[in-house]
C-alpha cells in the first residue's frame, strides 16, 4: 500500500481531475446497469398488459440511458487516459531529477540495460496505476454501493446476498489473485530486466560473437533467460485463469441466490411480481462494476513490481551534495590543484595516494602514465564526480566541496574517451556546450577541430544525424566532434582526455597544434598515451603505476 501511495505521490495526480474521471466512470457504468434493469422492469410491467401510456415514462428513461451511457464512457476514457499520461510524464521527470545527481559513479552498479529498462519500460508500466488499477477500483466502490442500496430498497435480503456476492467477487477474488500474482509479478519484472540486459549486451557485441564463432553460446544464454521468463509467464497464466473463472462462478451463484430469494419473496407476497425479473437483472448487471477488478488487481501487482524497481532507483541518495552555504564561484583566471589527494572507488584499493598536481592559469600540463593508473580518476576528481578520501581538490585556492557543483564544472570543458555523443544532430551535440550558439560559432569550433570541411560536404550539414553514440562517424571524426564541443564551452580549463585516440599521427599532430592554438589563454590538462601534443606542453606529470 505504501508503494502505491508513494507512486501516486510521484505521479502527482491532481484531485480535481481524478475526481472527474472517477465520477464519469461511475456514471458510465451506472447508466449501463440501469439500462438493463429498467428494460427488465419495462418488460415485466408490460406483461401486466397495462395501457401503453403507462409505459411511456419508462420507455423514455430507457432511451435516455441508451444515449447517456456511451457518452459518459467516452468522456470518462478521455479523462482517465489524459490523467494517466500526465502522471506518467511527471513520474519520468521526477525520477530523472533523482537519478541525475547520481551519475556517473553510483549508476555503474546497475547493468546499463537494466537501468534503461527501469527508466523506460518500468516507468511506462506505471501508466496502468490509475487506468487499470485505482480508477476501476474507485468506480467499482461507488457503483456497487449504489446497487446494493437500490436492491435494499426493494428487498433487503437480496441486497445482502448481492453485497456478499459483490464483496467476494469484487474484493476477495482480486485480492487473492493479486497476492498470488505479486510473487510472480516481481520475479517477472526482474526476469524481464535480466533478459533485456542480456539481449542488449549480445546485440551490441554481435559482431565479435559472430567473428569468434560464439553465436551459439550467446544464443543459448538468451534462450535460457527467455525460457525463464516463459516459465514464469505460464505460472502467471494459471493464476489468471483461476481468478476470472472464480469470478464467473461468484456472479452466477449470486444470481441464483437473488433469484431464489425474489421468487420466495414474491411467493409470500412481500415482493411485487414485476420486480422479480428486475431484481435478477439488477443483480447480474451490477457485477459490471466489479468485473474489471480481477484483471485490475493483477495489473496492479505487476505494476507494483515495476513501481518498486523505479522507487529503488529514485531512492538512492547521491554521495556528492552541495554545501548548504556554498562559497561564490571563483573568478577566472584560476589555478586548479590536487593537494595530497588519495582517491578510491567504493571498496577497492586506492587509485593513487597523496597526489599533487598544480595548474596555474595558462599552464599547459600533460598527465601521462600507464593505462589504469588513474588518469580518468583525476578528471572525475576535478569535475567533482568523486570526492577524495584524503587531501583536497581546489579551484582558485578553494576546496571544491565548498563550492557549488555547477560552478566547479563550469570551470572545465571535457573532451574524453567516455564523452558521450548523443543520437542527435551535429548541431545539437555541439550546442550541449553552448546552448544558444549560432551556426557561425559552431562552424568556427568545427574548423578549429579540423572537421569543418567534412561537415560542409555533408548533404545535411550541421543537421546530420550522428547515430547511436556517434556510430555514423568514424572513430577519428567522433573524437574531433567531441573536441569541437569542448572548445565551444568557453571554460577556463580544458580537460583533454585522450583527444587523439583513433587518429593517424599526421592528423593527431595537426589537431593538437590547432587545439593548443585555439585554446588561447586557457589552462590545458592533456591526458594522453600518445606522443603528439607532448612537445606543446610546459610540463609532463607521470602517474606512477598502481
Amino acid at each position: 500500500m505504501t508503494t502505491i501511495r508513494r507512486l501516486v505521490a510521484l505521479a502527482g495526480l491532481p484531485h480535481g481531475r481524478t475526481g472527474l474521471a472517477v465520477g464519469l466512470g461511475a456514471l458510465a457504468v451506472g447508466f449501463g446497469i440501469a439500462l438493463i434493469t429498467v428494460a427488465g422492469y419495462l418488460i415485466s410491467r408490460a406483461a401486466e398488459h397495462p395501457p401503453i401510456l403507462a409505459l411511456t415514462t419508462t420507455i423514455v428513461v430507457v432511451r435516455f440511458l441508451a444515449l447517456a451511457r456511451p457518452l459518459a464512457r467516452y468522456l470518462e476514457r478521455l479523462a482517465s487516459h489524459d490523467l494517466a499520461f500526465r502522471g506518467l510524464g511527471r513520474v519520468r521527470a521526477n525520477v530523472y531529477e533523482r537519478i541525475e545527481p547520481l551519475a556517473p559513479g553510483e549508476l555503474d552498479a546497475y547493468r546499463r540495460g537494466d537501468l534503461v529498462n527501469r527508466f523506460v519500460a518500468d516507468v511506462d508500466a506505471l501508466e496502468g496505476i490509475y487506468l487499470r488499477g485505482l480508477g476501476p477500483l474507485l468506480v467499482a466502490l461507488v457503483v456497487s454501493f449504489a446497487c446494493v442500496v437500490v436492491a435494499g430498497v426493494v428487498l433487503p435480503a437480496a441486497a445482502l446476498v448481492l453485497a456478499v456476492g459483490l464483496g467476494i467477487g469484487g474484493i476477495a477474488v482480486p485480492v487473492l489473485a493479486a497476492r498470488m500474482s505479486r510473487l510472480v509479478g516481481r520475479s517477472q519484472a526482474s526476469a524481464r530486466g535480466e533478459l533485456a540486459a542480456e539481449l542488449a549486451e549480445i546485440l551490441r557485441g554481435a559482431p565479435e560473437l559472430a567473428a569468434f564463432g560464439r553465436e551459439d553460446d550467446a544464443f543459448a544464454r538468451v534462450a535460457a533467460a527467455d525460457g525463464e521468463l516463459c516459465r514464469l509467464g505460464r505460472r502467471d497464466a494459471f493464476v489468471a485463469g483461476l481468478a476470472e473463472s472464480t469470478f464467473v462462478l461468484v456472479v452466477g451463484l449470486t444470481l441464483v441466490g437473488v433469484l431464489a430469494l425474489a421468487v420466495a419473496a414474491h411467493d409470500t407476497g412481500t415482493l411485487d411480481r414485476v420486480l422479480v425479473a428486475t431484481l435478477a437483472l439488477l443483480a447480474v448487471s451490477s457485477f459490471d462494476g466489479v468485473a474489471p477488478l480481477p484483471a485490475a488487481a493483477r495489473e496492479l501487482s505487476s505494476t507494483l513490481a515495476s513501481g518498486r524497481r523505479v522507487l529503488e532507483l529514485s531512492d538512492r541518495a547521491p554521495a556528492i551534495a552541495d554545501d548548504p552555504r556554498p562559497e561564490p564561484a571563483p573568478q577566472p583566471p584560476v589555478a586548479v590543484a590536487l593537494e595530497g589527494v588519495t582517491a578510491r572507488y567504493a571498496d577497492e584499493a586506492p587509485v593513487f595516494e597523496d597526489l599533487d598536481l598544480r595548474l596555474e592559469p595558462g599552464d599547459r600540463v600533460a598527465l601521462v602514465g600507464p593505462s589504469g593508473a588513474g588518469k580518468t580518476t583525476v578528471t572525475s576528481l576535478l569535475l567533482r564526480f568523486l570526492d577524495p578520501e584524503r587531501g583536497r581538490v581546489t579551484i582558485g585556492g578553494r576546496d571544491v566541496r565548498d563550492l557549488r557543483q555547477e560552478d566547479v564544472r563550469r570551470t572545465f570543458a571535457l573532451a574524453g574517451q567516455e564523452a558521450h555523443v548523443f543520437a542527435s544532430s551535429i548541431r545539437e551535440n555541439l550546442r550541449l556546450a553552448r546552448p544558444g550558439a549560432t551556426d557561425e560559432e559552431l562552424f568556427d569550433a568545427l574548423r578549429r577541430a579540423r572537421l569543418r570541411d567534412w561537415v560542409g560536404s555533408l548533404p545535411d550539414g550541421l543537421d546530420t544525424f550522428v547515430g547511436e553514440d556517434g556510430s555514423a562517424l568514424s572513430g577519428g571524426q567522433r573524437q574531433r566532434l567531441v573536441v569541437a564541443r569542448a572548445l565551444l564551452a568557453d571554460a577556463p580549463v580544458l580537460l583533454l582526455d585522450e583527444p587523439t585516440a583513433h587518429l593517424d599521427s599526421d592528423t593527431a599532430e595537426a589537431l593538437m597544434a590547432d587545439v593548443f592554438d585555439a585554446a588561447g589563454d586557457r589552462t590545458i590538462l592533456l591526458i594522453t598515451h600518445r606522443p603528439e601534443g607532448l612537445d606543446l606542453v610546459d610540463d609532463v606529470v607521470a602517474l606512477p603505476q598502481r
Partner: protein
Amino acid sequence: MRVLDPRLLRRARAVRALLIVDAALAVVAALLVLAQAFLLARIAARSFGGSSLDDVTPALVLLVAVVSARAFATWGFEVAGRRAAADVISELRLDVVDARLRRRPAALDGVQSAEVATAAVSGVEALEATFARYVPQVALAAIVPVAVLVIVAWIDLLAAGVMLITLPLVPVFMWLVGRYTERRARERWQALAVLANHFHDVVRGLPTLRAFNRGPAQAERIAEVSEEYRRTTMGTLRIAFLSGAILELAATLGIALVAVVVGVRLAEGDIGFESSLTVLVLAPELYLPLRNLAAQWHASADGGAVAERMLDLADASPAEHGSAPAPSPALEPIRFERVSFRYPARDVDVAREVDFEVRPGETVALVGPSGGGKTTLLSLVLRFVEPSSGRILVGDHDLAAVDQAAWRRFVAYVPQQPTLFRGAVADNVRLGDPGATDEAVAAAAGLAGAHEFVSALPDGYQTVVGDGGRAVSTGERRRIALARAFLRDAPLVLLDEPTADLDPESAALVAEAVERLRVGRTVVLVAHRAELAARADRILRIDGGRVVEEVVA
C-alpha cells in the same frame, strides 16, 4: 498492417492445437451464457405466473450446474490462450536474436540495440493480447451472434429484425475505424520507440550532460518529450475512443429498441412474457462478442505494430548458405577482385572496385584518412557483409561459397571498439578459445601486454567486467581483446587500429607482439600510426573507398 500478420500466423502453426482448444472452450463458455439466459427467463416468468420456490428449484439447480460449467470453461480458455501466446512470443524473440547473431552481425540498418532489446522483451508481450484474447474472440464473434439471432428469430421475428438492423453497424464502424487506427498504432509505436531511444541515450550520456552542467536542463526536455507524447497519443485516442463510443451506442440503442419493441408487443398481448424476457436477456449477448472483438482489436493493434517490427527484423535477411570447406589463409592468398560495397540504405559506395591481394604469411597495412573504408574491408573479409559487386577469393575459392563458420575459425578479429561481456576477464579472453586453460589465458594476456594490469585487479583474472562490472579503460579493453586474438592462434589476423589507445610502453609491447604474431601468419592491419604501418610488408593507402597507393616495404 493487420493485427494478425500472416507471418505471425505461420509461426502460430506450432501452437495450433492450443489455439483450437482455446477457441473451442471460449465458444462453449459463450453458449453456456445463452443457456444461463434461458434459465433466468424461465424462472422469472414462472414466478411471475405464480410458481412457488419449490416449483422452480429444479431449474435453479440446473442453473447452478450451468454456471459451474461456464466457470470451468473460462479457466480453460484463458490458460490455453496465454500459453499459446507465450510460445509464439518466445519464438519470435529468439528469431530476432538469431537474425542479429547469425545472419546480420553488423548493425547495417541503423537498428538501435536498445530499442530492439526493449521491444523484444516488453513490447512483444503486447502480442499476448493478440493470441490470448483476439483469436478466441474471432471465434466467438463468428458463432455467438448467429446463435442469438437464430434463437430470437425463432421466438419473435420482429425482435430479430430490429437486432438485424442494428447489428451490422458494429462491424461497419469497426472496419472504418480499424483503417484509421492501423496507421496510428504504427505511429504510436514509433513514437514510443523514439521516446525509448531518447531516454536510453540520455541515461547513457548522463555523465557527459553533468560535465557540461546540462543535467538539470535535460529534465525540462524530458518533461517536454513526455508532454509531446501525451498530446499526440491523446489526439489518436480521441478518435479511437470515438469509435468505441459509436460501437457502444449501436449496442445500447439496439438493446433499448428491442426492449421497447418487445415491451409494446407484450403489452398488446402479441408475445409471451418468458419469450420477451429471454429476448431481453439475450440482446446484450448479441453485441458483446463484436464489441469485445473491437476492444481486443485495439489492444492487439499495439501488439501488431510491434510484431511487424520484430518480424521485419527476424526476416531481414536469409541465412548464408555457403557450405564448401574453408581454404586456409595459411596456404592460399586472399584476393579482392574488383569489390564494391555499399550499405543498403545509402547511395555511396564505401568500397569502390577494390582490388588487391594478400599473400600467405604477409602483413598488409591499410592506411588512410578516417572514414575512407578501411574497416569495411575487414567486415567483408569477416563476411559480416557481402560485396555488392566483385568477389573475394581465397585461392581459387569464392569466399561467398565457403562455409561461414569454418572460415571464421581461421580468423582472429580485434575491432576498433571491443566489447567486454559481463563476466570474468579470463572468460572474456576465452572468447578466442573457449576450452583454454588458465595458463593459456595468462600466456595470451602476457603476449598482449595485459597480464600486469589484470593481475593487479581486485580479483585478478576472475574480476567481473562488462556492463555493470568493473569499469576498464579503453586501453585495457583493447589489450583484453588482443589477448583473445593471441589465444585463438588463427592463421589470419584482422586488427583494427590495435595501438590506438596505448601508452608508449604498451604500444611498443604490442608492436613486438604483432611482430611475433606475424611469423607464419597472414595479417591485415588497419593502422593510423606510421610506426606500426612501417613494419608491414606492404602498405595500402585507402581513400574514398579505393586503393590509391601501394607501397612495398
